[in-house]
């Protein structure tokens, strides 16, 4: 186990990593921007270092500032959380070159999976199902039209270096494709520093289901189960659950095997997630992308397996060979992302939190990043907390989720808590028979 760790992140995930570090006797170092000085993760760490002003490019994305903080505090390891520098292969290389332990996968695996086109090609070669799509970047609108004729409409337009749903759009025909292509390219350039675009066949009534993998230090890759992440707005996840209500046993076995194969193909180590789209009717799946880091929704897997994935990350990064060999899934878990946004249109709502009372009780876990008195600023994502529940079965998990949402009080910024109450009351979500269009379809009825 490393003697100390610098957590190169903020908010709920920084706090969550610090919590496990403390339990394992690892000294923790937080880094923070001027906007975040008052947040709980800064106070929770054994030491904290101010690394810059609020804009991410000048603080959490500033590799020099983060590495300087590691030197200054004598931290022996770096945990990147998710987002920011977590999937930056060059940063991982610099951490390792500085003689520190990188609590993440090998930089080469980050690079191979970071480009969506290279990842698709690699997965196809490894025998993982992929949807019809681009094998090389699409340079211009004319090429996009030709490529879409080959793939077949509807198509999804994506940034090859992208993530988080940014710049993604679906096109039913040539006119939409031409318009979407230009938008996607300018966003790709701005957000990800690369204009490379790919097209993929779009599966309209799909479920988004991902497999949690764990690459052990001895090279074995385990699949720890799936998570259903079909509840999305603007292609971004809002709620997740495990097991997926749309995945039958034979499909689950095939998906877990494909997830492990994906990890083996890139020599994966540590925690990672392989995302798939599932056609529930046909019980078929295709590879979407791999996230080479701890996932936001990892707590649902922890709740049903009893594992602490951050502990696993630390042990594997330290070279412990055989940290886990078998997992048993018990019960059902749901995560609800509590965002600072209005519950109808999902528009951002920054502001100062005047009251915060979170639910507790059997099967309830809250990973929060804020507390009363903190200000939610416009500089970062709107995630305030993850409300997670565990039950003996899906019905009990749903009941616990409804009670927990009703008992969660946050005043100041508007939050999507009323949306979660609406979701949990809807026939669509309650029945389990839903796909990525669940938010639109439940609102059509109301």
């Amino acid at each position, binding site marked *: 186990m490393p003697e100390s760790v610098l957590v190169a992140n903020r908010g709920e995930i920084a706090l969550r990593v610090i919590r496990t570090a403390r339990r394992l006797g690892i000294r923790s170092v937080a880094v923070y921007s001027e906007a975040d000085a008052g947040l709980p993760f800064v106070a929770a760490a054994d030491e904290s270092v101010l690394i810059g002003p609020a804009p991410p490019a000048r603080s959490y994305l500033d590799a020099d500032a983060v590495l300087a903080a590691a030197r200054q505090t004598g931290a022996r390891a770096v945990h990147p959380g998710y987002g920011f520098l977590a999937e930056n292969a060059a940063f991982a290389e610099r951490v390792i070159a500085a003689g520190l332990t990188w609590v993440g996968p090998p930089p080469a695996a980050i690079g191979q999976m970071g480009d969506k086109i290279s990842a698709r090609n690699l997965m196809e070669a490894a025998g993982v199902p992929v949807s019809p799509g681009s094998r090389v970047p699409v340079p211009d609108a004319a090429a996009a039209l030709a490529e879409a004729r080959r793939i077949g409409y509807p198509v999804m337009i994506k940034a090859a270096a992208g993530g988080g749903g*940014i710049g993604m759009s679906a096109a039913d025909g040539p006119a939409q494709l031409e318009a979407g292509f230009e938008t996607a390219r300018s966003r790709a350039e701005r957000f990800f520093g690369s204009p490379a675009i790919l097209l993929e066949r779009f599966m309209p009534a799909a479920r988004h289901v991902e497999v949690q993998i764990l690459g052990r230090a001895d090279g074995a890759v385990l699949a720890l189960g799936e998570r259903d992440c079909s509840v999305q707005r603007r292609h971004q996840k809002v709620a997740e659950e495990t097991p997926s209500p749309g995945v039958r046993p034979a499909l689950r076995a095939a998906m877990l095997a494909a997830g492990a194969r994906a990890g083996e193909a890139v020599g994966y180590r540590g925690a990672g997630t392989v995302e798939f789209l599932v056609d529930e009717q046909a019980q078929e799946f295709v590879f979407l992308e791999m996230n080479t880091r701890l996932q936001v929704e990892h707590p649902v897997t922890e709740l049903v397996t009893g594992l602490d994935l951050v502990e696993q990350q630390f042990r594997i990064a330290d070279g412990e060979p055989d940290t886990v060999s078998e997992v048993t899934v018990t019960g059902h878990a749901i995560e609800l992302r509590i965002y*600072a946004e209005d519950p109808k249109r999902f528009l*951002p709502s*920054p502001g100062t939190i005047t009251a915060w009372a979170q639910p507790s009780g059997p099967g309830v876990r809250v990973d929060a990043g804020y507390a009363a008195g903190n200000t939610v600023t*416009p500089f*970062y*994502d*709107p995630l305030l907390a993850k409300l997670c529940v565990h039950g003996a079965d899906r019905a009990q998990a749903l009941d616990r989720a409804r009670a927990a949402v009703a008992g969660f009080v946050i005043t100041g910024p508007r939050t999507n808590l009323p949306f979660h109450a609406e979701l949990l009351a809807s026939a669509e979500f309650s029945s389990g028979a839903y796909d990525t269009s669940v938010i639109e379809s439940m609102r059509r009825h109301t």
Partner: protein
Amino acid sequence: MSEIRAEMVANVWKVVAAEGDTVSDGDTLVILESMKMEIPVLAESSGTLARLAVAEGDVIQEGDLIAVIQ
């Protein structure tokens, strides 16, 4: 005359229109960014853009004046 004010705290990402432009109801004037989301600010009436009170890179507060259409 109509005043357009900010609905939330945000960063001004892009200024699309310029003072003196003729604008129509629904035209994008400015694109704000908050919490990793782009939010277009639209003209709420047709006319001449008499005043543009923000510049790219500004941080604006809820209620701040963005533009005046005459």
